[in-house]
């Protein structure tokens, strides 16, 4: 039960995007289609879990004043693994995500979890934390991409929804990303204040 809590907290209570407001660049940039969003979430979760494990393993032998460069090097190594794997096996995805794959390195969620959680907790807990945060990130990405793809391109997973309807292109380009996330945060605030009563 206690372990389950580590996973659950990333989904809602400490959702990295909606509550903590970090990791915004990939969130807004890759949510033009649901499949892009899911690939991005998968890549980020992989890096997140792996770096959490490694950071947790070496947490007692890293001198504290040089820990940040070490964490960044660990994260960057896993990002390179993801980059090369995608390039080899999923070239289309690699093309579509483009610059945002190398930019996983500077996704504050990963460094933030390494610093705040993995460097202080056991390996197993760090895995669960990485999984929870990854799911929270992926879930938010999925919702954003769902609205943007259906409204902005009239498609879902690349299949046309209503034939002959002209989509609202604004949703698929930059402004649509800002609007969708803004409205999502509004809805979340409204939900929270209703709960408080």
């Amino acid at each position, binding site marked *: 039960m206690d372990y389950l809590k580590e996973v659950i907290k990333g989904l809602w209570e400490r959702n990295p995007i909606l509550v903590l*407001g*970090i*990791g*915004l*660049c990939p969130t*807004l*940039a890759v949510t033009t289609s649901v499949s892009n969003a899911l690939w991005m979430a998968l890549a980020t979760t992989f890096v997140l879990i792996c770096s959490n494990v490694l950071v947790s393993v070496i947490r007692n032998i890293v001198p504290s004043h040089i820990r*940040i*460069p070490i964490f*960044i*090097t660990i994260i*960057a*190594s896993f*990002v*390179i693994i993801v*980059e*090369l794997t995608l390039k080899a096996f999923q070239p289309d995805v690699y093309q579509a995500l483009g*610059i945002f794959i*190398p*930019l996983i*390195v*500077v*996704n*504050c969620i990963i*460094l933030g979890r390494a610093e705040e959680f993995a460097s202080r907790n056991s390996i197993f807990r760090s895995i669960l934390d990485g999984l929870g945060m990854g799911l929270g990130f992926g879930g938010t990405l999925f919702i954003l991409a769902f609205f943007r793809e259906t409204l902005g391109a009239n498609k879902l997973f690349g299949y046309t929804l209503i034939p002959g309807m002209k989509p609202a292109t*604004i949703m698929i*380009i*930059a*402004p*649509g*990303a*800002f*609007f969708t*996330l*803004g*409205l999502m*945060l*509004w809805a979340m*605030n*409204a939900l929270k*204040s209703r709960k408080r009563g």
Partner: protein
Amino acid sequence: MEIKVLFVILISTILINNYVLSQMLGLCPFLGVSKKMDSALGMGLAVIFVMTMASFFTFLIYKYLLIPWHVTYLRTIAFILVIASLVQLVEMTIEKISPTLYQALGIFLPLITTNCAVLGVAVLNIETGFATKDLGMVMTVVQGFGAGIGFTIALLLMAGIRERLELADIPGNLKGMPISFITAGLLAIAFLGFSGMKI
């Protein structure tokens, strides 16, 4: 001829492909440091400085270290280390040379390492293929500088609007982050107007 090319690069990075509002890079500081005008200006100046320097050094590393040794796949790790140490170096130098400037920029410098626009401009410089061109180095530096200017313009516009939004009468749930995102969306629409520009 070269001057014209450089001018085109500058205009397109500042306005047409604005890093924040049309490429969506560097959003964390864009929303985090845009509450007050003066801190926005400080952050903007620090970003211009670091981006220009980072473009220059990552270009050198890529062209004279990674390409000759055939290890271009190490690009990401090399660039992030260069940027992190550069930021550290800049911080120490400014602290020694000009304490007043350090006072103004000091707190923003550590934040810049995780600003994805800086790594973004370094990676984009390489992907545009500047490394193989004759005047690649100059173009790289101009693109880095332009990206910094574009970031600063977006940040200042946002800060100016948000200072006024503080006093605006809007629904309680919309206050803070949600309205900032909607404002950013409107700004992005405005910048969309530049995308039809032909130079």
